[in-house]
């Protein structure tokens, strides 16, 4: 994990403004999946349209970063920009409401789910590598305690407790996300 990946959004924006290319790459890396998910899962854009929106979003972020008034509000800003450009894309295509086009309620639920998933992902990134690894193995890869214990060389009886503690740290991180800068990696 690079040092830049542990920076808060506001700190990252600051580095980008200073012309730090690595910081810009980190910004794109941090938000690329989010933008793409909003385009494809939220607005159900085709791959081609999603690519166009993706390019346009980051071009505008790059050129308008100085206009961002609250550096910590980077994600809401990117989210709003992405949504607007997705709607522009749909309008430009002149499509009638297709059957697979999301209805407003469904769209709002999908976008909320995407936002939640990315909030969790960001919070996860602040945990220790071991915690990230254990949570990923148990919840995303459906691995058993025995497999986790064998592969991470941990005493088998402690895996469940360790995962519980990692979840507790994740929860604390999620609850405190809007109350200040990113916490230390626990």
């Amino acid at each position, binding site marked *: 994990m690079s040092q830049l990946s542990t920076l808060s959004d506001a700190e990252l924006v600051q580095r980008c403004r200073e012309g730090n290319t690595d910081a810009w790459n980190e910004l794109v890396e941090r938000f690329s999946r989010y933008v793409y998910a909003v385009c494809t899962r939220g607005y159900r854009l085709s791959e081609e349209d999603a690519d166009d929106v993706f390019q346009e979003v980051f071009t505008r972020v790059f050129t308008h970063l100085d206009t961002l008034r609250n550096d910590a509000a980077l994600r809401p800003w990117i989210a709003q920009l992405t949504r607007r450009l997705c709607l522009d894309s749909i309008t430009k295509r002149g499509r009638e409401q297709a059957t697979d086009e999301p209805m407003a309620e469904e769209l709002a639920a999908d976008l909320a789910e995407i936002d939640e998933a990315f909030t969790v992902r960001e919070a996860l990134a602040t945990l220790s590598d071991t915690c990230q690894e254990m949570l990923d193995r*148990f*919840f995303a890869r*459906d691995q*058993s*305690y*025995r497999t986790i214990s064998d592969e991470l060389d941990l005493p*088998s*009886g402690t895996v*469940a*407790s360790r*995962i*519980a*503690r*990692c*979840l*507790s740290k994740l*929860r604390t991180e999620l609850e405190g996300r809007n109350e200040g800068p990113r916490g230390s990696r626990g």
Partner: protein
Amino acid sequence: METEDYLDLRIDEFLDRLAEGGRAPGGGSAAALAVAFAAGLVAMVARCSRGSWEDAAGVAAQSLAIKERAAQLARTDADAWQQASAALGEAGADGDAEGRDRELEQKLGHAAAVPLEIAELGADAAALAALVGEYCEGAYRADAAAAAALASGGASAAAHLVQVNLTVQEGDERLKRARASEQAAAESAKRTLASIR
């Protein structure tokens, strides 16, 4: 060939299906649901102990994940078993015998993989039951013990289904894993039941 989704049935309807004369649901589905019930109980005990145990929420979250996985396997196991049974039935038919053998082996292999997963989930549910049995509020210890016993039963039943699968021979890695899960679940249950009498 697909079975109905048992999770959409009422409990009495599922039990009626289980008692009917068809191939599925059978032992694998029942074992999966026993593990799911155990995990559900563990989640309940953990949630009821949040006031006195700081890891309770994290243990409940893990139990819920195991409950979901095990419950889904009730249907997956029935599908796998039905497909393997159908392939077994066609084994002696005329035509491409080699192709049919390959298909049979692949389907039987899948029919062993599902109970193996159930056995491993049973071991995990039993480990969580032991953990909640140790740290939960006193009023819920008996439920933790019940969860451990159910999880161990499910793991044992599933391990047996791996053992009797036609593709599994003594010394097979799948059988070793299934037996290890069965044993781990039994030890967790024994410990939990002994501490709560």
